[in-house]
């Protein structure tokens, strides 16, 4: 696909008018705030917000030395790894079988994609309801099995709760992409392998999985970004970052520090760190996917 059009229109003023609305919106609501975040991350205001002093990279240094920030980093890392691996594995499983099924893949797809429509906040509430220590139906089931379950007190339980909610929501998205990826593998490759004597299990690992690698990589990045950001609502609804701060993922901490604890400088510094991470991930994804796709 051409990166440029050969044929263009000539006008000196029209393109400016066309592009103006978008430029205005992103200037006011994106670049200006982003610049502010950068600025604020190098400042510190006093308790009443009346004076501001330049502190250079001190906010960042503080973050580095702040136990709770590092803990949040660790929490987020664990959370995103769990969400990404579980989410991708389960969706891939479902996609592989949906691809196999000659009739009905459309029906299964319909039933598996609608969780995409569910708001993370709602998902959080649903999971909270099902797993609430005293009234949750699943908690009941767990206790019947003889295990204990209390996400309000047990960090591991709380983490499991938000991981499950997050994965449930992401299954549709991953499933769609995996299914599309599998369906785009030429059937002739599979048939050739079958004629060579490869059984389904082997065919999957030696042909389908490698050919899915661009999709897998892409989804990996997307899922990590999802785990970092879109899950705020799930955390807020299901555990509020608790017990204590054990499920406070980074974005939750930004919110909490900025809006509840009123530490603007620290919150801004955290925002900047997050920005850097996202940009890095996106760049990596673009570079890698662009290269891989051209074989």
């Amino acid at each position: 696909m051409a990166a440029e059009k050969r044929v263009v229109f000539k006008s000196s003023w029209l393109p400016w008018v066309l592009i103006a609305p978008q430029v205005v919106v992103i200037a006011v609501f994106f670049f200006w705030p982003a610049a502010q975040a950068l600025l604020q991350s190098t400042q510190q205001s006093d308790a009443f917000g009346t004076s501001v002093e330049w502190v250079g990279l001190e906010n960042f240094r503080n973050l580095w030395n702040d136990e709770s920030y590092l803990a949040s980093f660790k929490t987020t890392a664990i959370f995103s790894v769990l969400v990404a691996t579980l989410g991708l594995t389960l969706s891939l499983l479902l996609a592989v079988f949906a691809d196999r099924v000659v009739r009905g893949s459309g029906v299964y797809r319909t039933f598996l994609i609608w969780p995409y429509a569910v708001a993370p906040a709602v998902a959080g509430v649903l999971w909270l309801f099902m797993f609430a220590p005293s009234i949750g139906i699943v908690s009941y089931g767990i206790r019947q099995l003889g295990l204990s379950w209390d996400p309000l007190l047990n960090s591991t339980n709380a983490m499991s709760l938000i991981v499950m909610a997050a994965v449930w929501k992401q299954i549709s998205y991953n499933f769609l992409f995996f299914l599309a990826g599998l369906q785009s593998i030429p059937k002739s490759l599979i048939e050739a392998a079958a004629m060579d004597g490869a059984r389904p299990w082997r065919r999957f690992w030696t042909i389908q999985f490698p050919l899915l690698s661009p999709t897998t990589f892409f989804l990996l990045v997307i899922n990590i970004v999802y785990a970092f950001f879109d899950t705020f609502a799930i955390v807020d609804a299901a555990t509020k970052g608790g017990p204590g701060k054990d499920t406070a993922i980074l974005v939750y901490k930004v919110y909490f520090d900025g809006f509840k604890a009123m530490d603007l400088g620290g919150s801004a510094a955290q925002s900047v760190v997050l920005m850097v991470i996202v940009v890095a991930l996106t760049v990596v994804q673009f570079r890698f996917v662009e290269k891989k796709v051209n074989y």
Partner: protein
Amino acid sequence: MVERRPWLDFLSHAILVIGVLVVAFPVYITFVASTHTTQEVVQSPMPLLPGSHFVENYATALSGDRQGSGSHASVGRMMVVSLVTALVISIGKIAISLLSAFAIVYFRFPFRMAFFWAIFITLMLPVEVRIGPTYQVVADLGLLNSYAGLTIPLIASATATFLFRQFFLTVPDELVEAARVDGAGPMRFFKDILVPLSSTSMAALFVIQFIYGWNQYLWPLLVTTEENMYPVVIGIKQMISGGDAQTEWNIVMATAMLAMLPPALVVMLMQKWFVKGLVDTEK
């Protein structure tokens, strides 16, 4: 399939059905809970079959006429807020992106590429990353607790522009030339030819953006403090703030069902375009 392996086919169907059931389970529970009284729901275990209080519960939720703890906003009102927000975001985004993508692809002007990269960068940073200062800007502009404040900052990202740009690049050059020979100027070409051809992309984007707008949580949490401007997803959360014992879970679940309904409908009805749009967006 390549060879006949009936047991594998059976396994496939079995796994898929289990998958569907597991995915549907939470929603089933939600529905069941929304049809019982609070007492029935908070006992452990709660009943697994629907009850008889469907109409009652939903009416209560919609009107906001409740006794329990947490917020008392009428779900009906909140659904309206969510609907308006989602529609403004999706339609607004599509409109300005069509125009920007058109300008970037079909014209040459100074800083064109600079604008393109600037718009591209916005793809990378979701609103969650810049909440503090963006909130500040919105507050300074006096847009708190308004539809404008709820929607405009979320129109700022460029997914739609990117998608349209990719699509426009695949429109054959000859169509533009034929239009020029026919005497069509740029806006005529845009209106009569480019936009009709983009209808599939627009439909796909509409679904994605509508859901995005409807499901927004963090941002509305910050910019709305008045109950009558809460979107429904915030409303749900506020309802459970009284602690397990006092929360009217059955009403909460009814609200959850209502909250899930419009986006689910949009996805189901426009499934074809949605899938196509989602998969094509990233290519």
